[in-house]
């Protein structure tokens, strides 16, 4: 049990990394990953995803070096909302199994913070079933709306060899990093709610509403299948300027894509009341007119 996902990731990385070890992170990515890896002298190797934000196995293969210790995948993804499909994950497992046969053990660390927030009746592929060296980190910040309580856990595949050693390392890490243990009260509470979540239908409605607005406005955007983020293309290459315009002229607050390692895009977090999403429609439409219909 860990102090949220952020705590869990730090515990894993502390236990796993030697200074100079590399962790592959598909981009766009949640910026904190870089800080977490850096905390333990690790090196983040960024790998571009495809146009639709799915894993690019060719790019991943090219990024693997002798120093690669792990690949950190976050699906449903922050900031894109992409859910990595079964096929790409199987390819990833295949690639890493080939490396294993060649004598290099590379772990998959899955940040499953948004695992219950998936839409369109899709099922999140289970990476444990595909590959042996898997550690899954999750929290109840989103699925049980307990972000402030800092409660999560790490699940370590029973197929990992030297399992006891890794578990001992993590038990010590959780102590020496100063977490000591996950908060007592919410360990007990969360234990009973493993099969429960906040209303996913609610989020799905918000996703649909926001996506429809963006399409109406003429923005380019991959329809997300999970999490509560959308990551549209900025109408102009300098998304910083665009984000400022959106804020100053339409009072719509979003985050520039470079905060996630991908300039030219911006992130919308739609985990807010429906009326805010609908209220922003006019603003998005005006922006669309301005940039796409000659208003520029």
């Amino acid at each position, binding site marked *: 049990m860990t102090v949220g996902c952020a705590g869990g990731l730090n515990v894993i990385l502390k236990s796993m990394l030697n200074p100079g070890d590399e962790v592959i992170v598909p981009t766009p990515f949640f910026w904190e990953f870089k800080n*977490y890896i850096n905390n333990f002298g690790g090196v983040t190797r960024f790998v571009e995803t495809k146009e639709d934000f799915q894993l690019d196995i060719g790019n991943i293969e090219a990024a693997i070096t002798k120093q690669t210790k792990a690949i950190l995948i976050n699906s449903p993804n922050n900031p894109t909302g992409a859910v990595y499909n079964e096929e790409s994950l199987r390819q990833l497992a295949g690639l890493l199994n080939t490396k294993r046969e060649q004598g290099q053990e590379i772990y998959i660390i899955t940040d499953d913070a948004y695992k219950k927030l998936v839409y369109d009746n899709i099922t999140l592929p289970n990476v444990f079933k595909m590959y042996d060296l898997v550690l899954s980190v999750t929290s109840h910040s989103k699925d049980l709306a307990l972000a402030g*309580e*800092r409660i999560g856990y790490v699940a370590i595949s029973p197929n990992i060899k030297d399992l006891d050693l890794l578990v001992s390392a993590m038990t010590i890490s959780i102590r*020496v*990093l*100063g*977490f*000591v*243990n*996950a908060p007592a009260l919410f360990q007990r509470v969360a234990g009973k709610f493993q099969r429960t979540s906040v209303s996913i239908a609610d989020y799905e409605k918000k996703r649909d509403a926001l996506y429809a607005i963006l399409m109406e406005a003429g923005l380019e955007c991959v329809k997300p299948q999970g999490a509560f983020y959308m990551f549209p293309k900025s109408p102009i290459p300098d998304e910083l300027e665009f984000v400022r315009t959106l804020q100053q002229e339409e009072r719509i607050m979003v985050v520039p894509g470079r905060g996630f390692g991908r300039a030219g895009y911006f992130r919308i977090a739609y985990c807010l009341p429906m009326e805010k999403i609908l209220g922003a429609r006019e603003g998005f439409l005006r922006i669309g007119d301005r940039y796409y219909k000659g208003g520029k």
Partner: protein
Amino acid sequence: MKNSSWIRAMFEEGEKLKKKFGAENIYDFSLGNPITEPPEALKEELIRVASSDAKGMHRYMSNSGYEDVREEIAQYQSETSGLPFTKNHIVMTVGAAGGLNVVFKSILDPGDEVIVPCPFFVEFMFYIGNHNGVMKLVDTKDDFHLDMDKIKSAITRKTKAILINSPHNPTGVVYNEKELSELAALLKERGQKGQRIYIVADEAYRKIIYNGTRLPNLASLYDDTVTVTCHSKDLGLAGERIGYIAMSPRIKNVKSLIDATIFANRILGFINAPAIMQRVVSKFQRNSVDIMEYQIKRDAIYNILVESGFEVVKPAGAFYIFPKSPIPDDVLFVKTMLQHHILTVPGVGFGKPGYFRIAYCVNMDVIEKSRPYFKEVGELLRNGKQ
């Protein structure tokens, strides 16, 4: 990894013995995990907070913690120090262990040194090492009080902080105003020469203090003081991981230190202190579990040790006592004690071989029942020596 903690090693040894002989036949003094329950009023407050219909009770808040909570704590800090603490000087943390990691991440550059008086709580070594600091151990005097000459000669150009833990784990010593003033004077001298050395005060046991002993307020003695505390012991909430950092308003450029700690709290993966317990503890800054109960236990264990012929400094606080081992090999001694079903931790686990630690935060019953065994071991060893 294997030598990471004698405390845990003994704890695990004890679990095995308990299975073999039954828990009631093992006298486990190995772990500082108090049996004392939180105050009844705190449980009521917890129920009140948990039942609140207010929206957003469990959401993220500012990484430094709730504003109103920090305001309450700042007020308490101002009362005890006489300094103008505001909510900005307080960062809520995942216990004192979390707080210390945040502080060291914020103040240390690789190779920076932190002076730690010895014996010491072994986790400090990891907390400093985590952030590429170098721990410089400095022996204390025979009565475990600070040895100013030794501290003075341990200071180098790389010294960034001295970590003061009082009431102290594992000795139970409480540093007095005189020695802390001397320490402050020594550090001020370095300050005048342009070297800032922080005092990082680990006050996890600050309310567990006996016979009207007063805990001197370090922040009022020395400007560059960062205090870290938690409610694990004073409110019996060890498992809930709730504490805070209080940065003296007199620290020069305190704003940049505050910003650094808030950032460190985030990127080290704590993000924020657990929400519900922040709200609860803010109302209990002036309360604590029953200290008298601890004092009675302290007296009982002290008397048992003295009667049994052990050499021991009477502790003024915390719930530890650190007697001299009757034989030089403390690990062998602790193993001998184990045969008598008494679980303690060898001094080597605190950087001080030749001693052992007793954590007496256990039922009075356990202390009383252990009496004949301490006597037996004491006699055995005295006879053995003759």
